[in-house]
């Protein structure tokens, strides 16, 4: 369980995250949606202690994240932010192996390599594992980063806009993999996502934020609702049921 209680964050006198409380169940995908500047990325960065919160409490399985050792936390929770920022010339395999750093401090043992191999296989990167990151397409690179997070083998995985810059095929591929991670391996995934239809089709829970406040949180079917979406995005969004999926038409 991730428990977030009355969390605040201010930037230059502006409340970016304003009294947010959420609790996230294990073994689910929770999507954070909302317009630009709603505080989604800030919130997810605070959960993974990349940025410090101003007030409130965040606990993971009952442990306060600020009181947990960095290295211990890195075995419990991982975060992937926009991945294009890495411009090092590393091979996929080298990158994935870094996912074992919290366990091995760089000296990988046999069981670490087993995890690395598993992660590479899971993301179907076996054939290109010795290619350098700068030789890959955007989709391959994103998969390589997710493989690294998999090798890190944390119960909780946080992803900040994992579909950024990906085409439809790769987006679907990534989301299906995430679903598989939850259903097969029992991971708990939190993601910030802009496309509400991806959120609607793949997540169990949705948290809708606006101006730093929670507008609505709950099961996907409750949040994907015309009135709720109107509140969040200030636009009329029609919802159609196609094959038991709620698809938002907002064009």
């Amino acid at each position: 369980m991730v428990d977030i209680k009355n969390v605040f964050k201010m930037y230059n006198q502006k409340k970016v995250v304003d009294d947010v409380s959420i609790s996230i169940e294990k073994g689910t995908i929770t999507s954070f949606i909302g317009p630009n500047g709603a505080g989604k990325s800030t919130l997810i960065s605070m959960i993974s202690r990349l940025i410090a919160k101003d007030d409130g409490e965040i606990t993971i399985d009952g442990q306060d994240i600020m009181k947990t050792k960095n290295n211990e936390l890195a075995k419990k929770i991982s975060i992937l932010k926009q991945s294009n920022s890495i411009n090092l010339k590393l091979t996929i395999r080298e990158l994935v192996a870094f996912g074992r750093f919290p366990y091995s401090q760089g000296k990988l043992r046999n069981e670490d390599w087993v995890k690395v191999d598993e992660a590479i296989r899971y993301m179907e990167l076996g054939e290109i594992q010795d290619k350098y990151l700068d030789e890959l397409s955007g989709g391959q690179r994103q998969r390589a980063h997710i493989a690294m997070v998999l090798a890190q083998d944390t119960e909780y995985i946080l992803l900040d806009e994992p579909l950024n810059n990906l085409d439809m095929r790769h987006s679907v591929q990534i989301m299906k993999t995430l679903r598989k991670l939850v259903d097969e391996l029992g991971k708990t995934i939190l993601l910030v996502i802009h496309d509400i239809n991806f959120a609607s089709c793949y997540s169990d829970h949705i948290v809708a934020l606006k101006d730093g406040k929670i507008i609505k949180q709950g099961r996907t079917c409750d949040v994907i609702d015309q009135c709720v979406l109107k509140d969040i995005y200030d636009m009329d969004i029609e919802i159609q049921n196609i094959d038991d999926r709620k698809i938002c038409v907002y064009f």
Partner: protein
Amino acid sequence: MKIRYLVLILITFSFASVFIGVSNVSPLDLFHLTEDQAQILLVSRLPRLVSILIAGMSMSICGLIMQQLSRNKFVSPTTAGTLDSARLGILVSMMMFTAASPFQKMLVSFAFALIGTFIFMKILDKIKFKDAIFIPLVGLMFGNIISSISTFFAYRNDLIQNMSSWMQGDFSMIMSGNYELLYVSIPILALAFFYANKFTIAGMGEDFSKNLGLNYRQVVNLGLIIVALVTASVVLTVGVIPFLGLIIPNIVTIYRGDHLKKSIIHTALLGAVFVLFCDIIGRLIIYPYEVPISLTVGVIGSGIFIYLLLRRKKYGL
């Protein structure tokens, strides 16, 4: 390039280096050296070789660490104000503590180099426009400002000539008794090797490091301390060797990638080979006189640097 070729080349060049010079010592004499020849070997030739090897290795590794930590391929002690700050430190120690031992001078110089590099890294944090070429240019400007401060004080204290000996790297003055300070670099380089994995992670950014539970600030600070300490010891004994920290890591990256664990030994070896090569050329080109190392390295190094720049453009990196 295989590591054993590098080692082989290094040994060959080292051998050549020992037997090149005005006084005639040939490999054939090795087993029945006259007293003079033994003196020359022990007092001048071998210390020179050792200092070339250490300086070459350590300045290249400094460049490698700085490029990793600043996440910019064109940052090095030359282009981040580190060298200039180290020189200012030496000047200050000469003015304020005239009786200081070389080791004390090095500590003062180290402190300055460290502060200078920290300031550069702070400037780097503030710059929004993270262009690969723009950042080293800022570093060069910053270095020149520090350098002009040094010149100002040196001028007022009649130390200009003294200063210029640190301006130009030169191995011809190396003799046993005045180069041993360089040995300080060896344990520090061993530490750098030990931290190779952590530097690589730090090179992927603060968020990335935190995600993996790495104490980012601590690793960056350690890296900068290593760079400052090594730079100070090299500048004080040999002088400034330009371009070395810039080109060697870049060449190694091309064929070994950016994983420090894979590239650090290659960087060290190639750095040593390159300086040895430049030193041998410098000694042969106007034999029996010699050209200072900073000149040969400068000429060959700038050529390679231009090649790297053009190559980078071609590959759009």
